[in-house]
């Protein structure tokens, strides 16, 4: 398997920049309600081999989003950046694909939380669709904080 090259990622304004090797496993797309509230669309998640290396982090802010996860964004420009488990190893974060160069974004590997997806959009790829229960393996669904819809 060919090892992917390091890529540099950034928010819109440059107050958060980072580098890392996108996992060749592929792009995961999360359709959960929390992701869709935050950015009005599903979260395009790229895993980074060996973890994210922050270069500039003056704009990075973490939001305590649920029982299990935190969401990183830039507090200067609002760019959605990362999702991490509360017990994650340093840098072991899912990266929002939009922060990376288009050429560094892998093909779609899977869709997750597909049972949360609304009917009005549909992706054309044929990668596997997994429900929240599939992803959590029987663990309780995370409780979001803040406004519920």
């Amino acid at each position: 398997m060919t090892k992917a090259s390091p890529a540099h990622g950034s928010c819109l304004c440059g107050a958060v920049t980072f580098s890392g090797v996108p996992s060749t496993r592929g792009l995961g797309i999360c359709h959960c309600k929390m992701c869709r509230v935050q950015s009005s669309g599903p979260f395009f998640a790229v895993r980074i081999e060996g973890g994210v290396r922050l270069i500039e982090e003056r704009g990075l802010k973490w939001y305590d989003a649920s029982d299990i996860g935190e969401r990183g964004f830039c507090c200067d420009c609002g760019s959605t950046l990362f999702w991490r488990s509360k017990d994650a190893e340093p840098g072991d974060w899912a990266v929002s694909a939009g922060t990376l160069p288009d050429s560094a974004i892998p093909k779609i590997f899977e869709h997750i939380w597909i049972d949360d997806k609304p009917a009005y959009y549909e992706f054309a790829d044929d990668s596997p669709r997994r429900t929240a229960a599939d992803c959590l393996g029987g663990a309780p669904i995370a409780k979001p904080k803040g406004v519920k819809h």
Partner: protein
Amino acid sequence: MAAPATALRVSPKASVKSLSSSDYGVRGFCGNCGTHLYWKMKDDSMIAVWIGTLEHSDDLSFDTQIFIDSKPEHYAFTNETKNLTGAEVFAAVTGIP
């Protein structure tokens, strides 16, 4: 969803932050959680609200894509949509072809 900017009331204002993202546009977001709130013209002639913030936002129709020439290769929708390039969007807004 688009409307004149004066049609929108935001509360509480303290958590709303904005970025001057271009010569003509402003992006608003929540400073507490990063939720995308709106994109608006600097002259307040139009504001587009990000639908994720709306109640009952799952019952919508998806019929248009803009800046389609900027769309990357790694995704595509099966929805039949009217697709506009960036140049077509600017032409529609400014009236200049």
